[in-house]
């Protein structure tokens, strides 16, 4: 994959485009197509939508934390901090995804 950082840059663009569609769908089925206030029943019915939710979660976490990494590097944190930031963000991301996935699985009962 060419020069270092290219894969990260590419994935940031790929997740961005995917998120336009996935978040659009998420807003549609979780906010527009249902009566407010939302209820527990709205979120426990569909296996398909919970799988979509997990997809959104992974896309969002990658895109958000890569964005945070870019912003932190713009901070001018230095190369020593940079070596800590990347694994730390991976850890935060994995914990977040595990937290989210077990919530979605719990909702399915």
């Amino acid at each position: 994959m060419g020069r270092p950082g290219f894969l990260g840059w590419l994935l940031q663009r790929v997740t961005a485009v995917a998120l336009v569609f996935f978040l659009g769908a998420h807003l549609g089925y979780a906010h527009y197509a249902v009566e407010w206030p939302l209820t527990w029943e709205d979120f426990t019915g569909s296996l398909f939508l919970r799988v979509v939710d997990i997809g959104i979660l992974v896309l969002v976490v990658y895109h958000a934390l890569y964005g945070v990494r870019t912003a932190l590097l713009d901070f001018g944190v230095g190369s020593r901090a940079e070596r800590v930031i990347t694994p730390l963000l991976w850890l935060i991301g994995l914990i977040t995804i595990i937290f989210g996935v077990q919530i979605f699985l719990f909702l399915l009962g």
Partner: protein
Amino acid sequence: MARDERATFGGEKTLLERFTGTRGSWRRYEVGMWAWLLHRITGWLLVFYGFIHLWVIGFAAVRPESFDRVMEIFSHPLYLLLDLGLLGVVVFHALNGLRILLIDLGLKIPQKAFFWAAFSLAILAVGVSAPFFFQVV
């Protein structure tokens, strides 16, 4: 940012400059710089919102009663107003992100016009959605 500006404002960056990845007074910025600054600011907002969103709903989803109660709280007009703001932030970030992608791909797009389009469409999305959010129609 203009290169001479970077030279003019020497010394340590302020905290605000670090958070926004900018340097010096924003008043002298051109459209492209505003686009970049707004993308960074909306990006930070969305990161914080995303984590709060997952945590609040995640912890509320342990019991049907707590889930319904939290959703009832978030139906308050104050939260609907915040939701409306969030919609504008998401639409701007998405459309300006698309603009950045097109520029990165080397396409010769009218960059300033695309920024104003992203900005206007975000405001339009908020305006059009407001009556639905507050169930006026």
